[in-house]
């Protein structure tokens, strides 16, 4: 009973482990390109999780034979998650491209793509602005 439960849910837990690895890369590393790679890993494992909801044991891909003679005994896996994930993959690559373009511009503005360096440069700029326009802006930039 417990073995059946564990075997039935093992796939979900494995995909959650992958998700958490990707999540950890995003949260713990400071390099922006690595963050985007970690986000991609997270995204792909969410897709796997979602598609594993639609799988039917003993089923096959949801494509009928070309003459449309559907055998009523064959089981077909659920096509709806496939459609959603197809859309999600393409939208994902679009957002990745935008994120990478932003990283290129950040590099040109700040000279680095490490989070610590950029935070230092930002606080430097803030301190300089406070020193110059301190009283005019109420003492805080």
């Amino acid at each position: 009973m417990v073995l059946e439960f564990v075997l039935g849910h093992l796939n979900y837990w494995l995909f959650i482990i992958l998700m958490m690895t990707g999540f950890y890369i995003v949260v713990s590393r400071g390099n922006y390109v690595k963050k985007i790679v970690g986000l991609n890993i997270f995204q792909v494992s969410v897709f796997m999780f979602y598609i594993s909801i639609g799988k039917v044991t003993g089923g096959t891909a949801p494509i009928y034979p070309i003459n449309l003679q559907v055998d009523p005994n064959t089981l077909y896996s659920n096509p709806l998650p496939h459609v959603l994930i197809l859309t999600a993959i393409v939208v994902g690559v679009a957002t990745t491209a935008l994120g990478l373009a932003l990283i290129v511009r950040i590099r040109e503005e700040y000279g680095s793509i490490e989070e610590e360096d950029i935070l230092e440069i930002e606080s430097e700029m803030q301190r300089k602005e406070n020193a110059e326009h301190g009283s005019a802006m109420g003492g805080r930039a």
Partner: protein
Amino acid sequence: MRHHLILRVITKLLVPPIVLFALYVQFHGDYSPGGGFQAGVILAAGLILFGIVYGQRKVKKVFPPWLVHKLAALGVLIYGGTGVISLLAGKAFLDYSALAAHPKDGQHYGIIAVELGVGVTVSAVMVAIFYAFAARPPRINDEDW
């Protein structure tokens, strides 16, 4: 890339089959795995491969940036146009039964037109993004990789 003879020869041999495969996947999306997205990405991958090995000047002679930008918009227009044609025929937006006499034929025409729009836009968008990235002067020399 002038001294990478094997890469250049293999690319020259590979790019036509890649383009052919992209067209096959586009039009066989009804009968086998495939469709507009996959076909667009495969076509873009073929063009990007050519651009990487032979230099972006050469690939820009075949597909100049202004053409690629306009193709990206054209794909969306094809998709929306299919919907508007259904509207003009008196039915709902993207109702394919308005496109032909028999509703099933209308579905076929509608699906082919819509997938064509998707394929054109996706391939043009990927190539346009590649052009944007490749046109910037690089900050890493070729020897430092």
